[in-house]
């Protein structure tokens, strides 16, 4: 018999909480492929074959047969977010490319066949791999990773990152005009964050030529137009401080360096600014 009175909301909430925590406990251990028909395949029960997941099914007579589940039938991956990605992110932030790569490369390879499938850690792994590669000088690996990103079909976020990486390679090789062609595409199409990174690169290119006004206008676009992207501010402020100095405006150079040191004290750029500007 139903209870005669409305159930207290407290009970309902408690139940929800219980269910939610239960869900969390399940998902923390789950490594499953969820198919479009709702079937859940434990990762441990299948292997990756050509274009499909392969399950060995034992039969009573003692034999077995293979059941194949095409990758196209996978609706989502129910895998916990690999902790290695968080670790790799820390290494990247600290400028430790090889250490980050060692963590992220196996994940990128493992999840490459599932790049576009919801729940896949591949997109994050691929972006981190690109960041880690860019800390080094392996042009071939960067190019290959960029092409992989562009072919992933994951959208403008990823295409933009790939184009920016290629522009950076051109810049490093002294092919500034080629880098600029890529940058123009980025400024037209990419997401704001990639655009902002593009302006930083353009600032670097101009600074290398000692074109301080051009460098300043590129670096300062980041605080002016992309003010919410906080993680790019240290690089922009350091670039601006150097460009001001090159331009001969030492007052503004020092102010920019001080803003960097005050606002982002724990960054590599702040440490560099302290050294360069004697602050």
């Amino acid at each position, binding site marked *: 018999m139903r209870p*005669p009175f409305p159930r*207290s909301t407290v009970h309902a909430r408690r139940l929800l909480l219980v269910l939610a925590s239960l869900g969390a406990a399940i998902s923390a251990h789950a490594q499953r492929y969820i198919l479009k028909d709702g079937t859940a395949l434990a990762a441990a029960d299948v292997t990756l074959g050509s274009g499909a997941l392969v399950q060995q099914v034992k039969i009573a007579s003692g034999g077995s047969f293979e059941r194949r589940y095409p990758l196209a039938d996978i609706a989502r991956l129910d895998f916990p977010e690999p902790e290695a990605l968080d670790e790799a992110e820390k290494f990247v932030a600290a400028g430790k490319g090889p250490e980050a790569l060692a963590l992220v490369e196996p994940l990128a390879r493992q999840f490459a066949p599932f790049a576009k499938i919801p729940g896949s850690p591949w997109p994050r792994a691929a972006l981190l791999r690109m960041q880690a590669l860019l800390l080094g000088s392996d042009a071939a690996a960067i190019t290959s990773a960029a092409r992989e990103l562009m072919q992933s079909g994951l959208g403008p976020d990823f295409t933009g990152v790939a184009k920016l990486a290629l522009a950076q390679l051109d810049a490093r090789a002294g092919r500034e005009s080629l880098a600029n062609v890529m940058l123009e595409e980025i400024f037209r199409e990419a997401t704001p964050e990639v655009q902002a990174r593009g302006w930083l690169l353009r600032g670097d290119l101009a600074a290398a030529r000692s074109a301080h006004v051009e460098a300043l206008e590129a670096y*300062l676009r980041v605080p*002016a137009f992309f003010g919410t992207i906080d993680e790019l501010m240290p690089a922009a402020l350091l670039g601006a401080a150097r460009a001001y100095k*090159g331009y001969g*405006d030492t007052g503004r150079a020092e102010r920019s360096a001080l803003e960097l040191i005050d606002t982002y004290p724990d960054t590599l750029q702040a440490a560099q600014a302290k050294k360069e500007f004697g602050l």
Partner: protein
Amino acid sequence: MPSPRRSLGLPRGSRFTARFAALALAGAALSAQVPQIPLVNQLAEVEQQLTARRPADAIGLLDEIIKRAQAGETLPSGVTLERLLLTAANTNFQTQQFTRAAELATELEKLPSVGASALGEARMIRGLSLALQQKYAEAIPVFKTAEESSTFREKARLYGAMSAAQAGQIPVAIETYNRLLAAGPRDRDWADAALSLVDLNLRADNGADARRGLALLRGNLALVDNLAGLNLLSLQLGDALLKAGDSAGALAAFRTVTPRDPLIAEQKKRNAALERALERLKSAQRPSATEADAIRRVGARLEQAKASLAQVENLATFDATLRYRLAYAFQERGGVWEAALLFEDLIANHPTSPERENAYFGLVRAYADAGRFDKVRTAVERFTQAYPQSKFGPQALYLAAMAAGQRGDVDGQLGFLSLAKETYPGGELAEPMALMRANSLFTLGRFAEAKEVVATYAAAHPQGKFIEEARYLAGMADLAEGRATEAEKQIQAYLKDFPEGRFVPDARYRLAATAYARQDYQTSAALAEKWLADYPPEQPQRGEIYSLQGDAYAGLNRIEDAIEAYNRALALPLSDDQLGYVLDELTRHYQSLKRNDDAVAMWEQFAAEKPDHPFVINAAYWISRIRGREGRSDEALQLVSEITRRYVADPARGDVERLLIEIASTLARPPRAKRGEPKPAPAPEAELFKRVDSLLLVGSTRGSATAQARALFTHSEIAALRKNEPLRDELLGKIAARFAPDQLPPGILGKVGDTLLAQGQPELARKFYEQIIAGHPRSIFADFGHVGLGRIALGEGKGDEALARFNAAIDVAGARFKLKEATLGRAHAQLLLGKTEAARELFEQVAGNRAWRGEATAEALYFLGEIALRRGTPDDLAKAQAHYQRIYLSYKRFPAWVSKAYLRSAQTFEKSGQLLEALTTLNRMLTEERLQPFPEWQQAIALKPGLEARVPAATAPAPATSS
């Protein structure tokens, strides 16, 4: 919102309806006689109505059951009066019978045996019922008591805060929200509450708290359903902070605002999600009061989000407004480069926005504040062209004029002021602009015009804000024009009309100076004496008056008194000009009295007391000269080198190079012949170099790389004075090879850079120039760096960069040594960028500057000819011809330009159809054998036969002798 109270109708459509209606109509007396329906059955009926989602039909039954229970009838097992009352209150609340719901809740609260949970729920129902009847002030204390329940605490705080806000009790609302947010979980209700709190803080002018609230929300964006509202609040916060003068806070607020299109897209997504959530909530069976309230809250949140979205959608200029606010906030906190970028973007991408006009004005201001004077000019031109009638036009021109003045571009300043006068006559800035114009004219030495401007001003504004300054300037203009009598009259009239005026001390000084100029030294001395008696010792002009008094005494041939007056002047603050004058006069008078030791002692004392003063160089010069005249060159060199050694190891002391040049000059001077003896041969350079080393590299300076480089530099100066240019270049090359740029002072860096550039080593030169800018940006030699890098950029065909460099040489470094080169460089850069008219103006500026007469003139004339030749009209060809001819006629000392000019002159004649003149010019060129090494020589030879073939024989000129 509460709906009008409905009457307590009887349940309809159930099998119990008629019977229950009869009972109700019969009243209590009848009920005593008719057997009662068992409570169990009635409760079942209630259950049935509630399950069928007909709460209104359950209300009457519940009232009846409660009445029976309160009358003492026993309730079935498991059912309590407390539970009945709670259900009834909930059901009445659901059907919007808020008064009844509140009554039932009150009854429940009064039950002696009420449990804590039921008590909390009852208080919530009562509070909500009051609030929904708009009895907000009454609801506030009810919610406050409901906070006692740990179950309902958060909701009680939320509704308490909302009620307080509705009741206008803003501080109570803020305090309640703060308590709620401090303890509550981070969910969507929390985000709603945080948004409301920001709004309240804004209304209460608590900018800092609002700022913290928004920052918190930005960190939890996923919880914020009303993103559009959040963005609008950020704009409001930014405006409030700007108004309060907190531009950094305003900037932080504006920076978080998302542009319109992505904001609208995201809000639509969130609204759709909210609608789905609302549908889910509504589909729940038998929602409790709290659940019903959740439906209301989500509905309200959706409505608010939709309203905010509509507001953003209606703001077509949202992005332009945001850009403008960001730019303005940047500008207010000194981020003028960023402001300029934003204003430029607004102007370019929002052509119809009302903010565009303001943006132009902001742009002019930003460029002026950044010291980017070339940009100021173009920005003003663009502004006045785009908005010729703008009310900000005069302000923009005023700013541009001020910027030009700061840059020392008085011509430019006058240009802006004239444009302002023509375009915007009258207006509130007309008066200051008139005075600025008069001052500019005065600075340019156009005293008559300056006087005319102030006279017009005085006539138009006899009581004007600047009338005193205008009157005084009129007198000064006469004085400068040499009309001493008229000036005196003007000054006397000024003193009469403005006896307490701010120029009175200066006016009295000018009268004394006028008397001196009339050679009325007695009056001048007396006026000076009176001035000194009338004004206190701290009056800043006192030193100047003593100096004038010294002049007057000297005029009266009271030299000892003059020396005393000058010495008094020396003890007081003086401008550098005055200081230099007084020191020089004292030196002269000491020498006339043969008190050389006093003169030397004075300079030595000066150098000791003011070791960093630029006149230490003068000290070295005079000591060297006086002792040299006495035949004591060695002593002079010792004294000068002693001063030099103090700073020779410090690359930051850029003025040492001036002393080094003095030492080089003393050493390179040919030795004097002794009477009756033949003139001795000059000392070999190697010997002089050793001497330099012995003077400069002593003790600790010997090991200093900078001192060693300076010694080499002095060697190179000696080589230059001895006209041994290859040796000079070799020595400068040695400096480049042996020393790192950061070991060199800016003056040497500049010279070495120039030598390397002249030797065709731009990449090497670049390092030296860059070190000047990076290491010595404030040095008087900084312009060497900017100009050098500009020339390198020109060589690489980078017009924009070159122009920026040359502009920086003038605008940033002040172009103390390289103004001519920077101006020429700007002209070349403009030409490279295809801006012919700008280039022409600059070349004319160079060609017209008498002080620069020389190779720069020839170069400028040549390019003026090139520009005219490119235009190609008959008139232009004639102009080009005139330029070329001027070079080979007046600037013969510069064969490279003469050679070019001859060839171009001939080609221009040919283009004009004047073949005979062309041939004559070529023949004339080919008579000058010194031009043979230049490439134009061969071109002329190649051109000649063609011309000869086309010129009729009868008219052909005589062949050149050397061709």
